[in-house]
């Protein structure tokens, strides 16, 4: 008996040791980013590196903010992200409802086409998309970051799968009572779909906030840039001596909203990863 207990004790000890060591490896770059954001330029450019700043330079955050029009970047990021997220929740839940519940000619063929496009890599789409944007005259506008992203085959798929799992009994009853399809969608389906709305909402929010490639292609003017583009400007603009402490401060500000959102909405996020993971 004692033997078994000792074994368990040792096993747990080893498990925790490994978990803690790997946590440190995961967390180190974050800690380094945060501490560096409070250092003076002198503390940045020293060797051996100092880990903790002597005095926390909160002014770095103000300096970083003023070095580039960060208020503009922040506004653009929030605006684009909110528009895309809200838009996708609407279009994907509409589409998901149509695919899951309504019968119309060509439905299954269309759905298969949606599924097929899921595997097409973005680099294949980006060149024609760029040309489409250019012919619409939308290059270098926030519109170009919003409109093409208002729709998502993956989101539609996610919504449809979830709605297929909702029992039909309630809808049938409401139908007999004379509810229109719109009422069915709005009053019966949507309230039951809260978890999948949360999942898709978080995914879209994060994906849009973190998107770099598409804005890099579309946007040139400083006033139209989003936060990720702004961060990169920092890195390239001052070629001689990169102000790492200011970049770190700006990075902290950019990363923070997503980390908070992730920690709050973790449950739904994990669900999204797992469903898309297992279903492929």
């Amino acid at each position, binding site marked *: 008996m004692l033997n078994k207990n000792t074994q368990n004790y040792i096993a747990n000890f080893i498990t925790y040791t490994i*978990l803690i060591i790997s*946590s440190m490896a995961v967390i180190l770059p974050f800690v380094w980013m945060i501490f560096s954001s409070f250092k003076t330029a002198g503390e940045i450019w020293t060797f051996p590196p100092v880990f903790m700043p002597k005095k926390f330079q909160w002014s770095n955050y103000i300096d970083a903010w003023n070095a580039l029009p960060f208020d503009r970047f922040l506004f653009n990021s929030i605006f684009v992200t909110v528009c895309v997220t809200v838009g996708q929740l609407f279009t994907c839940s509409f589409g998901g409802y149509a695919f899951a519940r309504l019968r119309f000619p060509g439905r299954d063929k269309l759905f298969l086409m949606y599924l097929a496009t899921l595997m097409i890599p973005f680099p294949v789409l980006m060149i024609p998309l760029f040309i489409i944007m250019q012919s619409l005259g939308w290059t270098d506008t926030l519109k170009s970051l919003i409109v093409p992203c208002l729709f998502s085959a993956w989101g539609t798929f996610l919504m449809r799968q979830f709605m297929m799992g909702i029992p039909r009994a309630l809808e049938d009853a409401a139908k007999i009572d004379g509810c229109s399809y719109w009422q069915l969608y709005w009053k019966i389906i949507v309230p039951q779909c809260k978890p999948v709305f949360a999942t898709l909402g978080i995914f879209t929010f994060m994906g849009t906030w973190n998107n770099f490639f598409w804005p890099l292609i579309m946007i040139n003017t400083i006033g139209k840039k989003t936060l990720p583009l702004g961060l990169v400007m920092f*890195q390239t603009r001052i070629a001689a001596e990169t102000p790492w402490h200011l970049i770190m401060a700006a990075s902290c500000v950019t990363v923070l909203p997503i980390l908070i959102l992730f920690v709050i909405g973790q449950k739904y996020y994990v669900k999204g990863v797992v469903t898309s993971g297992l279903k492929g």
Partner: protein
Amino acid sequence: MKNKLFRLNYIQKEKITGYCFLSPNLMGFLIFSLLPIIASIFLTFTSWNLATNPKFVGFDNFSTVLKDELFWKYLWNTIYYAIGTIPLTVILAFFLAYLLNKKIRGVVFFRTLYFLPSVTLLVAIAIVWSWLYNADFGLFNYFLGKIGITGPRWLQSKEWAMPAIIIMGIWKGTGYSMLIFLAGLQGIPERYYEAAEIDGANWWHKIVHITIPLISPTTFFVIVTTTIGSIQGFDQFYIMTRGGPSGATTTLVYYIFQNAFEWFKMGYAATIAMMLFIIVLILTLIQWHFSNKWVFDEGVE
């Protein structure tokens, strides 16, 4: 008669409503998914610099791409990055998921922590890591110096730039794969382990004879999806090295970007993109083919 008319109307109404609900979605699909796909097929047969009209060139782009030394070099870089990242990511992810699948305290805490790199803005991560990799002031060379190794010049070195980005890729990607492994592990029924324990199996036997075989569909899935993901990487290469030094970290996607948006060779860029698509397509088909055979259909929620 009246009843029949009503029914007809009802079905008609459902059809119309169906299209109405789908229409915003379908418009997006047609304009921003289907049209670009068709357009990119046409583009591969043209030479177009955006300024003049596109010129039809037949299969010229394809014969050029096959003779393009840079294409093959960058294809190799792409494969190098994938091969460098995936095995370690998968092994680490499995290992961590295995540890987290035990009934111990703090599982949620560790899980959240390991997952943080996956949700963090890649741009910010790449910037922080380029500072960590700084040859003279960076943390890595400081640690290496402590154990008596003179660190390489990492991102400025032809040999070490790619391994540097690979290490960061592993750090960033492990959490995501871990989460999928965790879901897979939770699908293995407890009674298998109990039965094995009665037969006197130790933890190693259980891993080798129960966990690894039963988790193989998940492993396969993780390998294929991370491969597909890793060959599409762009942000880190753009931010950390701009594909350098001298093309050592230029991947296919980066080459597409250069061709399309630096040199405005739209047709040629679309052709390289098509090659990338073919690679992804093959991987996806392999996955479909095997996932049907390997499905372990017990207890997966």
